[in-house]
């Protein structure tokens, strides 16, 4: 069955390449035809990281409604073309081709995860259409081997910053001298965070007592946790996605491991609470893009509007999606010509854009320069939020 999946993926990739070539050759970037600005959404609406995609899209749709109700961009309404990439990078590539060649969008927003976003970039670059992700945090997303990816942007900080900030916070605020790392070895995200945490933590005089690894879709972590229990450490650094992180936290607490558990923005999902259970989610901290505990007026307005629309507290992915859509609209508004090329240039020139996840300017590597929040959880609820500057 594994083999079937690989073969399907290979077939999908082959098709994508064909489609990509055709699209790139003919279109040379979508043009603003008609009276709407077409924006493609290529998101994880089903599959293992579906909550990231769904949450991002909620934020995007809310932002686009606000923009359109306020008269649109330069008198044109934004029209969203939404597809589900099923949390698969191969599918994300196929959809990117479809969006650029047959839907002729001016910008693609998404996917939410780094792996899928990276799969999309070559297609976007070939079609000369800018692609923006609100949550692809891997370092090499916007900067490849040949320098900066001209058509790739993001509105979130990157992994090295997340790992570094958490290590600094653990050493300074938690007085941690030793840490155990549990990472997902099948995920670039998790490995990137772990590496940077390790670098900064040891530079600050801390000690990494051990590194345990698992792979995505594992469900039984008792063996590695039992092993961990025999070691002495002040904190556990667990840079993983919520599916496994939730189970690890649950099983760790059930085994009587009480050390603080630190993680990254992959923890930010209601599913984490369902998987781990409220009592296990105590003394758990994670770096995030945004906190609903922020007192800023703009943030509070976003929270109340979001609650009015969706009847639930917004997560960081909602906020990032919201900011990303606003960022695209802002770029389109400033662009000299409202076409893919013009929007791309305006995105790269963004200065002091003010969003609910903080204000930022784009640096030369298409990364926003912004602050990070460390969120503390108690009994399954977010109870503290501290800002850490870059």
């Amino acid at each position, binding site marked *: 069955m594994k083999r079937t999946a690989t073969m399907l993926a290979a077939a999908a990739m082959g098709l994508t390449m064909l489609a990509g070539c055709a699209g790139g050759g003919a279109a040379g970037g979508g043009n603003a035809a008609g009276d709407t600005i077409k924006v493609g959404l290529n998101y994880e609406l089903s599959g293992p990281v579906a*909550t990231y995609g769904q949450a991002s899209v909620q934020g995007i749709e809310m932002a686009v409604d606000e923009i359109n109700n306020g008269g649109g961009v330069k008198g044109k309404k934004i029209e969203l073309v939404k597809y589900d990439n099923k949390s698969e990078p191969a599918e994300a590539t196929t959809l990117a081709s479809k969006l650029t060649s047959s839907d002729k969008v001016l910008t693609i927003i998404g996917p939410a995860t780094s792996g899928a976003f990276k799969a999309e970039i070559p297609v976007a670059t070939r079609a000369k259409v800018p692609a923006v992700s609100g949550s692809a945090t891997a370092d090499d997303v916007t900067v490849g081997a040949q320098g900066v990816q001209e058509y790739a942007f993001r509105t979130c900080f990157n992994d090295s910053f997340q790992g570094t900030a958490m290590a600094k916070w653990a050493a300074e605020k938690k007085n941690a001298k030793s840490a155990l790392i549990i990472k997902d*070895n099948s995920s670039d995200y998790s490995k990137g965070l772990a590496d940077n945490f390790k670098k900064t933590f040891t530079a600050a005089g801390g000690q990494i007592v051990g590194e345990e690894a698992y*792979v995505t879709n594992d469900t039984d972590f008792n*063996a*590695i946790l039992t092993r961990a229990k025999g070691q002495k450490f002040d904190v556990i650094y667990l840079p993983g996605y919520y599916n496994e992180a939730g189970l690890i936290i649950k099983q760790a607490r059930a085994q*009587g491991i009480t050390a603080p558990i630190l993680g990254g923005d992959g923890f930010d999902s209601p*599913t984490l609470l369902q*998987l781990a259970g409220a009592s296990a989610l105590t003394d758990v901290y994670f770096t995030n893009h945004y906190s609903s505990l922020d007192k800023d007026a703009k943030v509070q307005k976003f929270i109340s509007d979001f609650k009015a629309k969706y009847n639930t507290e917004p997560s960081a992915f909602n906020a990032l999606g919201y900011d990303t859509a606003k960022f695209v609209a802002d770029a389109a508004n400033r662009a000299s010509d409202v076409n893919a090329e013009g929007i791309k240039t305006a995105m790269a020139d963004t200065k002091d854009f003010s969003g609910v996840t903080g204000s930022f300017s784009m640096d030369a590597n298409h990364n926003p320069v912004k602050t990070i929040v460390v969120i503390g959880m108690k009994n399954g609820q977010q109870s503290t939020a501290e800002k850490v500057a870059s």
Partner: protein
Amino acid sequence: MGEFAQQVINGLSLGSIYALIALGYTMVYGIIQLINFAHGDVYMVGAYVGYFSMTTLRLGFFESLLIAMVICMVLGVVIERVAYKPLRNSTRIAVLITAIGVSLLLEYTMMFFVGAAVRSYPPLPDYLTGSFQVGGVTVGNQQVLIIGVSLLLMAILQLIVRRTRVGRAMRAVSQDADAARLMGINVDNTISFTFALGSALAGAAGVLVGVYYNSINPLMGILPGLKAFVAAVFGGIGLIPGALIGGFFIGGVETFVSAAGQSLYKDAVVFGILIAILIIKPTGLLGRNVKEKV
């Protein structure tokens, strides 16, 4: 010592799940020489039935376990009647490919209805979430429950196979279906019964896993299904005690590979065992070498 004992408990919990699934594999193989690749997905269906019975119907753990077993039992019989019975006289490879088809059908039908996202079981009553200490070893009540329920089901299975008429019919059919038919045994019904038993055990394993790991998804059956298959081959496919030994063995191996700090290689080791067994002793640990009559 404490850590070792703890790992043994971890291994036993995992092993009993594999053993429950492996039993279904081995019984079906024993009776119609079919590796039923859809078996892992029956386990997945069991997990979802348990989930819906606990959330939508708000039933307790044991009622849900029973409902999941009954529904999987029906599902197993339906699969056998619809997909495998018409192919009773076809080549074995045709049936095998059908089994893979049924497996994919179950996975993606389930995905169509419930979505691909991971679901978590509802919070459990206190008697299932607690844990206790035995000589420095933390034993979760759920671990006791999993091992206990598994052993109980295995004991019941042994009783059925060894002590009942239908059990005797199963053994007869597995030895020689034609001779059994001449003796007046209804071979078709006996085969269906075997599927029913195996599927019920898989359904139970699904609910136990849902309760224990708290995380289910439509593709959850693939890997445990394959590992249970390895367990069945290890013990000697077609032999019920072999599946038990194999299940606990594979669970133990996986746990101790992780415990040695090599958790990334645990799947590789399990499938390495499959290769080794197939080369060294293809009939498995308890298997005897039977000459095929031409």
